């Protein structure tokens, strides 16, 4: 199978899975953005994307996408290190015009994946998983996602929103801004990963020439900034709310 046996085939799989994840991120970021405008709208999305069959299929495909992207990244990096040989250069320099991100894609990817585990524990486990199994893994009703997000990042909550039968003990107040900062660090790594990843994917699929090479590089930065900007706006909004509630 040429998709696994040839170098360009493997890179093609990386590109397709990567661009698929970029589309998902755009989708996810736009949904998050509703939190700033209307909590009801966010809760409507939570309801729509709960444990419905289409949401579950979507989650499965998404997980597969992440898995493929990660597995191929590991294989490619292993092969590339082998191709480099055992002897390393004594003097290593960075060439002009070569992005830092482009040489550290695996490291950035691992950072992104590491935070993803935290993110899944924070949200997926307490929302879709809760709805799926009926176990009360979180203090809030999964269909009232907005209240949970607000609680996680600011510590503010309405006691009436706590689920019946759940023993709720609020976490230390300083943890809320720490979560905000952690998510912002995560987004930084994501920005660098995307700033190279998007154009590299397009180049691997052959969509580049002397005119378009610079254009796809700009597109890459724009896409990375839009995605990270939308996610970060929500975090900054809640960080502001935390500061407003605790410092004044």
């Amino acid at each position, binding site marked *: 199978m040429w998709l696994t046996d040839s*170098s360009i085939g493997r890179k093609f799989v990386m590109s397709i899975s990567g661009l698929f994840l970029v589309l998902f991120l755009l989708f996810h970021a736009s949904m998050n953005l509703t939190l700033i405008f209307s909590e009801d709208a966010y809760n409507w999305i939570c309801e729509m994307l709960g444990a419905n069959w289409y949401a579950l299929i979507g989650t499965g495909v998404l997980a597969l996408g992440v898995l493929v992207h990660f597995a191929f990244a590991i294989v490619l990096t292993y092969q590339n290190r082998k*191709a480099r040989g055992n002897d390393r250069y004594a003097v290593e320099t960075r060439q002009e015009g070569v992005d830092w991100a482009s040489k550290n894609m695996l490291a950035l990817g691992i950072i992104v994946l590491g935070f993803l585990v935290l993110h899944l524990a924070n949200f997926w486990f307490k929302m879709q998983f809760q709805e799926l199994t009926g176990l009360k893994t979180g203090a809030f009703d999964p269909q009232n996602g907005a209240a949970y997000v607000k609680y996680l990042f600011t510590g503010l909550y309405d006691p009436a929103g706590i689920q019946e039968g759940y023993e709720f003990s609020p976490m230390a107040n300083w943890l809320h801004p720490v979560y905000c900062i952690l998510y912002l660090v995560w987004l930084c790594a994501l920005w660098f990963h995307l700033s*190279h990843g998007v154009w590299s994917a397009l180049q691997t699929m052959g969509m580049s020439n002397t005119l378009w090479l610079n254009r796809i590089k700009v597109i890459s930065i724009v896409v990375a900034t839009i995605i990270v900007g939308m996610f970060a706006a929500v975090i900054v909004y809640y960080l502001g709310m935390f500061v407003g509630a605790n410092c004044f």
Partner: protein
Amino acid sequence: MDKNINIKVRVWRQAGPKAKGYFETYELKNIFQGASFLEMMDILNEQLIAEHKDPIAFDHDCREGICGMCSMYVNGHPHGPDSAITTCQLHMRKFNDGETITVEPWRSHAFPVIKDLMVDRGAYDKIMQAGGFISVNTGGVPDANAIPIPKAKADEAMDAASCIGCGACAAACKNGSAMLFVAAKVSQLALLPQGKVEAAKRAKAMVAKMDELGFGNCTNTGACAAECPKSVSLTNIARLNREFLAAKFQD
């Protein structure tokens, strides 16, 4: 103004392909900055021979930047710190008095060291043999203007054809990938009508040979194009990807 400088040269010495390599530092006095880098290496070798030591083995041939034979990794750059030139075109005026210059061979799994700074770049020849050619019928010489070729295409093909196969791309690449070389060789033919006949077969055969020889997978860092002595563009890699993917989807 060019003047005479005193330098130290830290050179990779390796007796043979299996031997363990090490760095050795040599002192050179009164090197004229107008001298080329290879002339400096010649002076160093004469000094070594006078001391009854083994001279440093390094590749060189035309010494005018067209053969692609010279191959040193100088101060962290293939073909030295200057841009768009080969090592033989590098001059000592790029270095300062008292400087220590580190000289290493290309380091890549597919380019094993033969001796000192000399590496075996036969892998590139094997890739060429796999598909870097066109088939033509022998007979009378056809008229040069019989096949019209747009100027832009001809220019692009010529730019790709400027690749001298020196191996700097694979040497500079953190992935040890030969994509820029293969892309240049595929592009120069794919752009012209004469190369269209075998285009699909060529892309597949050359990529397969490149993978088989143990070169890495391209991640588009762009280090190859930045270090290429002939400034071969990264866009050729996109063309190779296009050619290869099109050929595979056709199958």
